[in-house]
Protein backbone atom coordinates (compact mmCIF):
# COMPACT_ATOMS: atom_id res chain seq x y z
CA UNK A 1 0.00 0.00 0.00
CA UNK A 2 1.26 3.46 -0.88
CA UNK A 3 1.37 6.05 1.88
CA UNK A 4 -1.68 8.36 1.68
CA UNK A 5 -0.84 11.90 0.57
CA UNK A 6 -1.57 14.67 3.07
CA UNK A 7 -4.62 16.08 1.27
CA UNK A 8 -6.33 12.69 1.44
CA UNK A 9 -5.71 11.99 5.09
CA UNK A 10 -8.79 13.70 6.51
CA UNK A 11 -10.96 11.67 4.14
CA UNK A 12 -9.88 8.29 5.51
CA UNK A 13 -12.35 6.41 7.66
CA UNK A 14 -11.49 5.94 11.33
CA UNK A 15 -10.36 2.36 10.84
CA UNK A 16 -8.37 3.26 7.72
CA UNK A 17 -6.58 5.99 9.69
CA UNK A 18 -5.94 3.67 12.64
CA UNK A 19 -4.67 0.87 10.41
CA UNK A 20 -2.47 3.23 8.37
CA UNK A 21 -0.91 4.54 11.57
CA UNK A 22 -0.40 1.06 13.00
CA UNK A 23 1.23 -0.04 9.74
CA UNK A 24 3.60 2.91 9.77
CA UNK A 25 2.13 4.36 6.61
CA UNK A 26 1.22 7.67 8.21
CA UNK A 27 2.12 9.54 11.37
CA UNK A 28 -0.36 10.58 14.03
CA UNK A 29 0.98 14.09 13.66
CA UNK A 30 0.07 14.12 9.96
CA UNK A 31 -3.44 12.87 10.78
CA UNK A 32 -3.93 15.56 13.42
CA UNK A 33 -2.55 18.28 11.16
CA UNK A 34 -4.88 17.24 8.34
CA UNK A 35 -7.89 17.45 10.67
CA UNK A 36 -6.83 20.74 12.23
CA UNK A 37 -6.34 22.25 8.77
CA UNK A 38 -9.88 21.21 7.76
CA UNK A 39 -11.32 22.71 10.95
CA UNK A 40 -9.41 25.98 10.47
CA UNK A 41 -10.58 26.27 6.89
CA UNK A 42 -14.21 25.17 7.19
CA UNK A 43 -15.63 25.34 10.70
CA UNK A 44 -16.51 28.99 10.29
CA UNK A 45 -19.41 27.74 8.17
CA UNK A 46 -20.32 24.61 10.14
CA UNK A 47 -19.78 25.81 13.75
CA UNK A 48 -19.24 22.30 15.06
CA UNK A 49 -16.47 23.05 17.57
CA UNK A 50 -16.86 24.47 21.07
CA UNK A 51 -13.30 23.99 22.35
CA UNK A 52 -10.32 23.15 20.16
CA UNK A 53 -7.23 21.85 21.99
CA UNK A 54 -4.79 22.07 19.07
CA UNK A 55 -1.65 22.13 21.16
CA UNK A 56 -2.65 19.21 23.34
CA UNK A 57 -3.75 17.25 20.27
CA UNK A 58 -0.42 17.75 18.51
CA UNK A 59 1.46 16.80 21.69
CA UNK A 60 -0.60 13.62 22.03
CA UNK A 61 -0.04 12.83 18.36
CA UNK A 62 3.71 13.34 18.74
CA UNK A 63 3.67 11.02 21.76
CA UNK A 64 1.84 8.37 19.72
CA UNK A 65 4.44 8.69 16.97
CA UNK A 66 7.23 8.32 19.51
CA UNK A 67 5.54 5.25 21.02
CA UNK A 68 5.32 3.60 17.64
CA UNK A 69 8.93 4.40 16.79
CA UNK A 70 9.94 2.88 20.13
CA UNK A 71 8.01 -0.28 19.28
CA UNK A 72 5.63 0.02 22.20
CA UNK A 73 2.30 -1.77 22.08
CA UNK A 74 -0.39 0.39 20.41
CA UNK A 75 -4.08 0.57 21.22
CA UNK A 76 -6.81 -0.12 18.66
CA UNK A 77 -7.38 3.58 18.04
CA UNK A 78 -3.79 4.77 18.44
CA UNK A 79 -3.03 8.06 16.75
CA UNK A 80 -6.60 8.73 15.59
CA UNK A 81 -7.89 12.31 16.15
CA UNK A 82 -11.37 12.59 17.62
CA UNK A 83 -13.57 15.23 19.20
CA UNK A 84 -16.57 14.65 21.43
CA UNK A 85 -19.91 16.16 22.33
CA UNK A 86 -19.35 18.69 25.11
CA UNK A 87 -21.11 16.61 27.78
CA UNK A 88 -18.43 13.95 28.33
CA UNK A 89 -16.62 15.02 31.46
CA UNK A 90 -12.85 15.34 31.58
CA UNK A 91 -11.48 16.23 34.99
CA UNK A 92 -10.66 19.90 35.26
CA UNK A 93 -11.83 20.81 31.73
CA UNK A 94 -14.96 22.84 31.10
CA UNK A 95 -17.92 20.74 30.00
CA UNK A 96 -20.60 23.24 28.99
CA UNK A 97 -23.26 20.71 27.97
CA UNK A 98 -24.09 23.28 25.29
CA UNK A 99 -25.60 25.54 27.92
CA UNK A 100 -25.16 28.91 29.58
CA UNK A 101 -25.91 27.34 32.96
CA UNK A 102 -22.85 25.05 32.77
CA UNK A 103 -20.64 27.38 30.76
CA UNK A 104 -17.96 27.25 33.50
CA UNK A 105 -18.63 23.75 34.86
CA UNK A 106 -15.41 21.82 35.49
CA UNK A 107 -16.07 18.21 36.53
CA UNK A 108 -13.83 16.48 39.05
CA UNK A 109 -13.71 13.10 37.28
CA UNK A 110 -13.29 11.89 33.71
CA UNK A 111 -15.99 9.89 31.94
CA UNK A 112 -15.24 6.18 31.75
CA UNK A 113 -15.82 6.20 28.01
CA UNK A 114 -13.15 8.90 27.57
CA UNK A 115 -10.75 6.91 29.74
CA UNK A 116 -11.31 3.87 27.50
CA UNK A 117 -10.70 5.91 24.35
CA UNK A 118 -7.56 7.38 25.93
CA UNK A 119 -6.35 3.89 26.80
CA UNK A 120 -6.91 2.82 23.19
CA UNK A 121 -4.63 5.64 22.07
CA UNK A 122 -7.19 8.01 20.54
CA UNK A 123 -6.08 11.64 20.21
CA UNK A 124 -8.64 13.97 21.84
CA UNK A 125 -8.73 17.34 20.05
CA UNK A 126 -11.50 19.01 22.06
CA UNK A 127 -15.24 19.32 22.43
CA UNK A 128 -18.18 19.79 20.09
CA UNK A 129 -21.29 21.85 19.72
CA UNK A 130 -24.55 20.20 20.75
CA UNK A 131 -28.13 20.97 21.56
CA UNK A 132 -28.40 22.70 24.94
CA UNK A 133 -28.37 19.91 27.54
CA UNK A 134 -28.86 17.46 24.63
CA UNK A 135 -32.50 18.48 24.53
CA UNK A 136 -33.33 19.14 20.89
CA UNK A 137 -33.36 17.00 17.74
CA UNK A 138 -32.43 19.79 15.31
CA UNK A 139 -29.03 21.28 16.20
CA UNK A 140 -30.17 24.73 17.30
CA UNK A 141 -28.06 26.29 20.03
CA UNK A 142 -28.67 29.81 21.34
CA UNK A 143 -25.51 29.97 23.45
CA UNK A 144 -22.81 28.70 21.10
CA UNK A 145 -24.62 29.36 17.82
CA UNK A 146 -26.57 26.92 15.68
CA UNK A 147 -24.63 24.11 14.09
CA UNK A 148 -24.99 24.10 10.27
CA UNK A 149 -25.36 21.14 7.96
CA UNK A 150 -22.16 20.76 5.92
CA UNK A 151 -24.22 19.69 2.89
CA UNK A 152 -26.08 23.02 2.93
CA UNK A 153 -25.76 25.47 5.82
CA UNK A 154 -29.39 26.60 5.95
CA UNK A 155 -30.44 23.07 6.92
CA UNK A 156 -30.50 21.34 10.30
CA UNK A 157 -27.66 19.04 11.30
CA UNK A 158 -29.98 17.05 13.48
CA UNK A 159 -29.46 16.87 17.21
CA UNK A 160 -28.68 16.67 19.83
CA UNK A 161 -25.16 15.51 18.80
CA UNK A 162 -25.04 18.23 16.16
CA UNK A 163 -21.32 18.97 16.15
CA UNK A 164 -20.51 15.26 16.20
CA UNK A 165 -22.53 14.58 13.04
CA UNK A 166 -21.54 17.74 11.20
CA UNK A 167 -17.84 17.42 12.04
CA UNK A 168 -17.54 13.77 11.03
CA UNK A 169 -19.34 14.60 7.76
CA UNK A 170 -17.08 17.60 7.14
CA UNK A 171 -13.98 15.44 7.66
CA UNK A 172 -12.83 17.48 10.67
CA UNK A 173 -12.04 14.33 12.68
CA UNK A 174 -12.55 10.58 12.29
CA UNK A 175 -15.00 9.84 15.08
CA UNK A 176 -17.01 11.56 17.75
CA UNK A 177 -19.00 10.53 20.77
CA UNK A 178 -22.66 11.41 20.64
CA UNK A 179 -25.39 10.55 23.08
CA UNK A 180 -28.83 9.19 22.24
CA UNK A 181 -31.96 9.52 24.39
CA UNK A 182 -34.52 9.80 21.59
CA UNK A 183 -32.39 9.72 18.45
CA UNK A 184 -29.55 12.13 19.21
CA UNK A 185 -26.89 9.96 17.57
CA UNK A 186 -28.99 8.56 14.71
CA UNK A 187 -30.57 11.87 13.71
CA UNK A 188 -27.37 13.85 13.15
CA UNK A 189 -26.00 10.74 11.46
CA UNK A 190 -28.83 10.71 8.94
CA UNK A 191 -29.09 14.47 8.44
CA UNK A 192 -25.33 14.83 7.93
CA UNK A 193 -24.82 11.62 5.92
CA UNK A 194 -22.66 9.63 8.34
CA UNK A 195 -22.98 6.45 10.40
CA UNK A 196 -24.31 6.56 13.97
CA UNK A 197 -24.81 3.70 16.42
CA UNK A 198 -27.04 3.71 19.50
CA UNK A 199 -26.02 0.58 21.43
CA UNK A 200 -28.29 -1.51 23.64
CA UNK A 201 -29.34 0.27 26.83
CA UNK A 202 -26.64 -0.46 29.48
CA UNK A 203 -24.07 -1.60 26.86
CA UNK A 204 -21.74 1.43 27.35
CA UNK A 205 -20.98 3.10 30.68
CA UNK A 206 -22.62 6.43 31.40
CA UNK A 207 -20.31 7.34 34.29
CA UNK A 208 -19.14 10.92 33.83
CA UNK A 209 -21.74 11.70 31.18
CA UNK A 210 -24.35 14.45 31.57
CA UNK A 211 -27.74 12.82 32.21
CA UNK A 212 -30.86 13.68 30.25
CA UNK A 213 -33.12 10.71 30.99
CA UNK A 214 -31.78 8.02 33.32
CA UNK A 215 -33.87 5.34 31.65
CA UNK A 216 -33.18 6.16 28.00
CA UNK A 217 -29.69 7.73 27.76
CA UNK A 218 -27.11 5.92 25.62
CA UNK A 219 -23.49 6.53 24.70
CA UNK A 220 -22.30 5.80 21.16
CA UNK A 221 -20.24 6.90 18.16
CA UNK A 222 -20.73 8.95 15.02
CA UNK A 223 -18.30 7.74 12.39
CA UNK A 224 -18.08 7.16 8.64
CA UNK A 225 -18.57 3.40 8.38
CA UNK A 226 -20.12 0.46 10.17
CA UNK A 227 -16.61 -0.94 10.57
CA UNK A 228 -15.61 2.25 12.38
CA UNK A 229 -18.61 1.85 14.68
CA UNK A 230 -17.68 -1.78 15.36
CA UNK A 231 -14.15 -0.92 16.46
CA UNK A 232 -15.27 2.10 18.45
CA UNK A 233 -17.88 0.03 20.29
CA UNK A 234 -15.40 -2.74 21.04
CA UNK A 235 -13.19 -0.19 22.79
CA UNK A 236 -15.94 1.56 24.73
CA UNK A 237 -18.46 -1.18 25.65
CA UNK A 238 -18.44 -3.36 28.74
CA UNK A 239 -19.28 -3.37 32.41
CA UNK A 240 -18.02 -0.45 34.47
CA UNK A 241 -17.86 -0.45 38.29
CA UNK A 242 -18.51 3.30 38.19
CA UNK A 243 -21.85 2.75 36.42
CA UNK A 244 -23.91 0.18 38.32
CA UNK A 245 -26.47 0.16 35.50
CA UNK A 246 -23.91 -1.04 32.94
CA UNK A 247 -24.41 -4.56 31.58
CA UNK A 248 -22.17 -7.48 32.50
CA UNK A 249 -22.59 -9.02 29.04
CA UNK A 250 -19.33 -10.02 27.37
CA UNK A 251 -18.13 -7.72 24.59
CA UNK A 252 -17.75 -9.71 21.37
CA UNK A 253 -15.36 -9.05 18.51
CA UNK A 254 -17.70 -6.86 16.50
CA UNK A 255 -15.32 -6.47 13.56
CA UNK A 256 -15.14 -10.25 13.16
CA UNK A 257 -18.88 -10.19 12.47
CA UNK A 258 -18.43 -7.95 9.42
CA UNK A 259 -18.26 -10.73 6.87
CA UNK A 260 -20.33 -8.99 4.21
CA UNK A 261 -22.52 -12.08 4.17
CA UNK A 262 -26.15 -11.40 5.04
CA UNK A 263 -27.62 -14.22 2.97
CA UNK A 264 -30.75 -15.41 4.69
CA UNK A 265 -30.86 -12.52 7.14
CA UNK A 266 -34.50 -11.70 7.83
CA UNK A 267 -35.44 -8.04 7.90
CA UNK A 268 -38.86 -6.77 8.98
CA UNK A 269 -40.46 -3.56 7.76
CA UNK A 270 -43.16 -2.28 10.11
CA UNK A 271 -46.10 -1.04 8.08
CA UNK A 272 -47.37 1.00 11.00
CA UNK A 273 -45.83 4.20 12.40
CA UNK A 274 -42.43 4.45 10.72
CA UNK A 275 -43.66 5.24 7.21
CA UNK A 276 -46.73 7.27 8.16
CA UNK A 277 -46.61 10.63 6.37
CA UNK A 278 -43.13 9.96 5.01
CA UNK A 279 -41.90 12.24 2.22
CA UNK A 280 -41.69 10.68 -1.24
CA UNK A 281 -37.88 10.99 -1.63
CA UNK A 282 -37.45 9.30 1.74
CA UNK A 283 -39.74 6.43 0.79
CA UNK A 284 -37.96 6.02 -2.54
CA UNK A 285 -34.52 5.92 -0.90
CA UNK A 286 -35.78 3.52 1.78
CA UNK A 287 -37.24 1.12 -0.82
CA UNK A 288 -33.98 1.29 -2.79
CA UNK A 289 -32.10 0.47 0.41
CA UNK A 290 -34.29 -2.58 0.95
CA UNK A 291 -33.50 -3.63 -2.63
CA UNK A 292 -29.79 -3.32 -1.85
CA UNK A 293 -30.19 -5.54 1.21
CA UNK A 294 -32.13 -8.06 -0.89
CA UNK A 295 -29.33 -7.97 -3.47
CA UNK A 296 -26.97 -9.20 -0.72
CA UNK A 297 -29.30 -12.06 0.09
CA UNK A 298 -31.48 -10.64 2.88
CA UNK A 299 -35.16 -11.51 3.01
CA UNK A 300 -37.45 -8.53 3.60
CA UNK A 301 -41.00 -8.92 4.90
CA UNK A 302 -43.73 -6.42 5.84
CA UNK A 303 -45.28 -6.81 9.27
CA UNK A 304 -47.72 -5.09 11.59
CA UNK A 305 -46.59 -4.14 15.11
CA UNK A 306 -49.63 -3.37 17.28
CA UNK A 307 -47.55 -2.56 20.38
CA UNK A 308 -46.00 0.54 18.76
CA UNK A 309 -48.83 2.80 19.82
CA UNK A 310 -48.27 2.14 23.51
CA UNK A 311 -44.50 2.19 23.09
CA UNK A 312 -44.62 5.67 21.59
CA UNK A 313 -46.89 7.05 24.27
CA UNK A 314 -44.73 5.69 27.06
CA UNK A 315 -41.51 6.81 25.37
CA UNK A 316 -42.65 10.42 25.47
CA UNK A 317 -43.72 10.11 29.08
CA UNK A 318 -40.48 8.66 30.39
CA UNK A 319 -38.00 10.94 28.67
CA UNK A 320 -39.93 14.14 29.33
CA UNK A 321 -40.62 13.43 32.99
CA UNK A 322 -37.02 12.44 33.68
CA UNK A 323 -35.73 15.50 31.82
CA UNK A 324 -38.05 17.71 33.81
CA UNK A 325 -36.87 16.17 37.08
CA UNK A 326 -33.18 16.59 36.25
CA UNK A 327 -33.70 20.26 35.39
CA UNK A 328 -36.14 21.21 38.14
CA UNK A 329 -33.71 23.21 40.26
CA UNK A 330 -32.39 25.21 37.32
CA UNK A 331 -35.90 25.71 35.92
CA UNK A 332 -36.85 27.15 39.30
CA UNK A 333 -33.76 29.27 39.84
CA UNK A 334 -32.46 30.18 36.35
CA UNK A 335 -35.32 29.78 33.85
CA UNK A 336 -34.07 32.72 31.80
CA UNK A 337 -30.71 31.02 31.21
CA UNK A 338 -32.33 28.38 28.98
CA UNK A 339 -33.13 28.91 25.32
CA UNK A 340 -36.85 29.43 24.80
CA UNK A 341 -37.32 26.14 22.98
CA UNK A 342 -35.72 24.22 25.85
CA UNK A 343 -37.52 25.78 28.80
CA UNK A 344 -40.76 25.47 26.83
CA UNK A 345 -40.14 21.79 26.20
CA UNK A 346 -39.08 21.02 29.76
CA UNK A 347 -42.09 22.88 31.17
CA UNK A 348 -44.62 20.47 29.71
CA UNK A 349 -42.91 17.63 31.58
CA UNK A 350 -44.00 19.02 34.96
CA UNK A 351 -47.64 18.40 34.10
CA UNK A 352 -47.47 14.62 33.72
CA UNK A 353 -49.14 12.67 36.53
CA UNK A 354 -46.69 10.56 38.53
CA UNK A 355 -48.84 7.43 38.27
CA UNK A 356 -48.49 7.41 34.48
CA UNK A 357 -44.71 7.69 34.71
CA UNK A 358 -44.62 4.75 37.11
CA UNK A 359 -46.92 2.80 34.81
CA UNK A 360 -44.67 3.57 31.83
CA UNK A 361 -41.63 2.20 33.66
CA UNK A 362 -43.51 -0.83 34.98
CA UNK A 363 -44.62 -1.77 31.47
CA UNK A 364 -41.21 -1.34 29.85
CA UNK A 365 -40.06 -4.92 30.24
CA UNK A 366 -43.32 -6.45 29.09
CA UNK A 367 -43.57 -4.08 26.11
CA UNK A 368 -40.04 -5.01 25.09
CA UNK A 369 -41.04 -8.67 25.19
CA UNK A 370 -44.19 -7.88 23.19
CA UNK A 371 -42.27 -5.91 20.56
CA UNK A 372 -39.72 -8.68 20.20
CA UNK A 373 -42.53 -11.20 19.79
CA UNK A 374 -44.29 -9.07 17.18
CA UNK A 375 -41.29 -7.78 15.22
CA UNK A 376 -38.18 -9.84 15.96
CA UNK A 377 -39.45 -13.38 16.29
CA UNK A 378 -38.72 -14.77 12.87
CA UNK A 379 -36.71 -11.67 11.98
CA UNK A 380 -33.18 -10.56 12.76
CA UNK A 381 -33.67 -6.83 12.28
CA UNK A 382 -36.27 -4.12 11.83
CA UNK A 383 -35.64 -1.56 9.07
CA UNK A 384 -37.09 1.96 8.97
CA UNK A 385 -36.19 5.35 7.54
CA UNK A 386 -34.32 7.19 10.31
CA UNK A 387 -36.18 10.43 9.54
CA UNK A 388 -39.56 10.39 7.82
CA UNK A 389 -39.21 13.76 6.14
CA UNK A 390 -36.61 15.45 4.04
CA UNK A 391 -34.06 17.37 6.11
CA UNK A 392 -35.78 20.50 7.50
CA UNK A 393 -34.20 23.93 7.53
CA UNK A 394 -33.03 25.59 10.73
CA UNK A 395 -35.60 28.34 10.14
CA UNK A 396 -38.65 26.09 9.82
CA UNK A 397 -37.84 24.28 13.09
CA UNK A 398 -36.88 27.37 15.10
CA UNK A 399 -39.29 27.60 18.04
CA UNK A 400 -37.48 30.57 19.56
CA UNK A 401 -38.26 32.61 16.46
CA UNK A 402 -41.80 31.28 16.03
CA UNK A 403 -43.50 28.93 18.52
CA UNK A 404 -45.76 27.78 15.68
CA UNK A 405 -42.82 25.64 14.51
CA UNK A 406 -43.40 23.34 17.51
CA UNK A 407 -44.98 20.38 15.72
CA UNK A 408 -42.33 20.27 12.98
CA UNK A 409 -39.62 20.42 15.63
CA UNK A 410 -41.14 17.58 17.67
CA UNK A 411 -41.77 15.36 14.64
CA UNK A 412 -38.05 15.04 13.84
CA UNK A 413 -37.46 12.20 16.31
CA UNK A 414 -40.64 10.19 15.62
CA UNK A 415 -38.82 7.17 14.14
CA UNK A 416 -35.91 7.02 16.54
CA UNK A 417 -37.60 7.46 19.95
CA UNK A 418 -39.28 4.03 20.21
CA UNK A 419 -35.94 2.20 20.28
CA UNK A 420 -34.84 4.20 23.32
CA UNK A 421 -37.81 3.10 25.41
CA UNK A 422 -37.26 -0.46 24.14
CA UNK A 423 -33.52 -0.23 24.82
CA UNK A 424 -32.66 -1.89 21.51
CA UNK A 425 -29.50 -1.31 19.47
CA UNK A 426 -30.07 0.74 16.32
CA UNK A 427 -27.81 2.17 13.65
CA UNK A 428 -28.35 4.83 11.00
CA UNK A 429 -26.42 4.64 7.74
CA UNK A 430 -26.64 6.93 4.69
CA UNK A 431 -28.92 5.52 1.99
CA UNK A 432 -29.30 8.30 -0.56
CA UNK A 433 -29.99 11.97 -1.12
CA UNK A 434 -33.15 13.98 -1.66
CA UNK A 435 -33.90 16.29 -4.57
CA UNK A 436 -32.05 19.15 -2.80
CA UNK A 437 -28.89 17.15 -2.20
CA UNK A 438 -29.49 16.49 1.51
CA UNK A 439 -28.81 13.01 2.94
CA UNK A 440 -31.36 10.32 3.81
CA UNK A 441 -30.76 7.61 6.42
CA UNK A 442 -31.65 3.95 6.86
CA UNK A 443 -32.22 2.74 10.43
CA UNK A 444 -31.61 -0.90 11.37
CA UNK A 445 -32.54 -2.15 14.85
CA UNK A 446 -31.98 -5.55 16.43
CA UNK A 447 -32.53 -7.55 19.59
CA UNK A 448 -30.83 -6.58 22.86
CA UNK A 449 -27.03 -6.92 22.64
CA UNK A 450 -27.28 -7.85 18.93
CA UNK A 451 -24.93 -5.06 17.87
CA UNK A 452 -22.88 -7.57 15.89
CA UNK A 453 -25.91 -8.43 13.74
CA UNK A 454 -26.86 -4.77 13.32
CA UNK A 455 -23.30 -3.90 12.31
CA UNK A 456 -23.01 -6.88 9.96
CA UNK A 457 -26.07 -5.76 8.03
CA UNK A 458 -24.96 -2.13 7.97
CA UNK A 459 -21.49 -3.10 6.76
CA UNK A 460 -22.91 -5.32 4.01
CA UNK A 461 -25.20 -2.46 2.97
CA UNK A 462 -22.22 -0.12 2.78
CA UNK A 463 -20.25 -2.64 0.73
CA UNK A 464 -23.21 -2.81 -1.65
CA UNK A 465 -24.01 0.91 -1.99
CA UNK A 466 -21.20 3.33 -1.21
CA UNK A 467 -23.44 6.21 -0.02
CA UNK A 468 -21.24 6.53 3.08
CA UNK A 469 -18.26 7.53 0.92
CA UNK A 470 -19.93 10.75 -0.31
CA UNK A 471 -18.54 13.89 1.31
CA UNK A 472 -19.98 17.41 1.29
CA UNK A 473 -18.21 19.97 -0.90
CA UNK A 474 -17.55 22.66 1.67
Amino acid sequence: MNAPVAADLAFLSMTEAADAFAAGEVTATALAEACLARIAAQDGVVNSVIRLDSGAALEAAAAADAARRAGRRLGKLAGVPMMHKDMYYRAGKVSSCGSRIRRDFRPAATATVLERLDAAGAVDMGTLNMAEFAQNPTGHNRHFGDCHNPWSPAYCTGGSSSGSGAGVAARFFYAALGSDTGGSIRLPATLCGVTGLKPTQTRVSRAGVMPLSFSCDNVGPLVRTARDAARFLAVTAGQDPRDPTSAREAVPDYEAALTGDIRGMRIAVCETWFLEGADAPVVAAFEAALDALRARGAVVTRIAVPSLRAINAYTALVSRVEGAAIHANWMREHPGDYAIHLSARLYGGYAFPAHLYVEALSRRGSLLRQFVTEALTGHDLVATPTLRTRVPTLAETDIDADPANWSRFMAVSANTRPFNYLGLPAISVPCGFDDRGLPIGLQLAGRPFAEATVLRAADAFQQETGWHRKAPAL
Partner: protein
Amino acid sequence: MEPDQVTIEAITRWGGIVLPNKAARIGLADNAALIAELEALRGTMGFEEEPSGFDAALRDCKEPSR
Protein backbone atom coordinates in the same frame (compact mmCIF):
# COMPACT_ATOMS: atom_id res chain seq x y z
CA MET B 1 -56.11 24.10 23.03
CA GLU B 2 -55.25 26.70 25.66
CA PRO B 3 -53.75 24.92 28.66
CA ASP B 4 -55.69 24.94 31.85
CA GLN B 5 -54.64 27.68 34.24
CA VAL B 6 -55.12 25.15 37.02
CA THR B 7 -52.25 23.08 35.58
CA ILE B 8 -49.96 26.10 35.43
CA GLU B 9 -50.76 26.93 39.02
CA ALA B 10 -50.27 23.30 40.09
CA ILE B 11 -46.81 23.23 38.53
CA THR B 12 -45.90 26.35 40.45
CA ARG B 13 -47.34 25.02 43.68
CA TRP B 14 -45.76 21.56 43.46
CA GLY B 15 -42.36 22.53 42.09
CA GLY B 16 -41.99 26.29 42.38
CA ILE B 17 -41.59 26.49 38.62
CA VAL B 18 -43.31 29.32 36.81
CA LEU B 19 -44.38 29.49 33.18
CA PRO B 20 -41.11 30.62 31.55
CA ASN B 21 -42.35 32.04 28.24
CA LYS B 22 -45.09 32.05 25.61
CA ALA B 23 -43.70 28.98 23.86
CA ALA B 24 -44.12 26.99 27.09
CA ARG B 25 -47.88 27.39 26.74
CA ILE B 26 -47.59 25.60 23.41
CA GLY B 27 -45.39 22.97 25.03
CA LEU B 28 -48.01 22.42 27.67
CA ALA B 29 -50.85 22.39 25.14
CA ASP B 30 -48.89 19.81 23.16
CA ASN B 31 -49.49 17.40 26.05
CA ALA B 32 -53.05 17.13 24.75
CA ALA B 33 -51.87 14.88 21.91
CA LEU B 34 -50.20 12.52 24.39
CA ILE B 35 -53.24 12.60 26.65
CA ALA B 36 -55.35 11.56 23.66
CA GLU B 37 -52.94 8.71 22.92
CA LEU B 38 -53.11 7.50 26.52
CA GLU B 39 -56.88 7.86 26.52
CA ALA B 40 -57.04 5.61 23.47
CA LEU B 41 -54.95 3.02 25.31
CA ARG B 42 -57.10 2.97 28.43
CA GLY B 43 -58.30 -0.49 29.20
CA THR B 44 -55.46 -2.09 27.25
CA MET B 45 -52.58 -0.92 29.43
CA GLY B 46 -52.01 -0.41 33.11
CA PHE B 47 -49.58 -0.95 35.93
CA GLU B 48 -47.65 -4.19 35.50
CA GLU B 49 -48.61 -6.20 38.55
CA GLU B 50 -46.19 -9.08 38.16
CA PRO B 51 -42.44 -8.56 38.68
CA SER B 52 -41.06 -7.57 35.29
CA GLY B 53 -37.67 -5.92 35.39
CA PHE B 54 -36.51 -4.19 32.26
CA ASP B 55 -32.93 -5.47 32.66
CA ALA B 56 -34.26 -9.02 32.88
CA ALA B 57 -36.26 -8.46 29.70
CA LEU B 58 -33.14 -7.22 27.92
CA ARG B 59 -31.33 -10.42 28.86
CA ASP B 60 -34.26 -12.68 28.04
CA CYS B 61 -34.84 -11.13 24.60
CA LYS B 62 -31.29 -11.61 23.33
CA GLU B 63 -30.70 -13.39 20.03
CA PRO B 64 -31.10 -17.15 20.25
CA SER B 65 -27.78 -18.96 20.11
CA ARG B 66 -26.84 -19.85 16.57
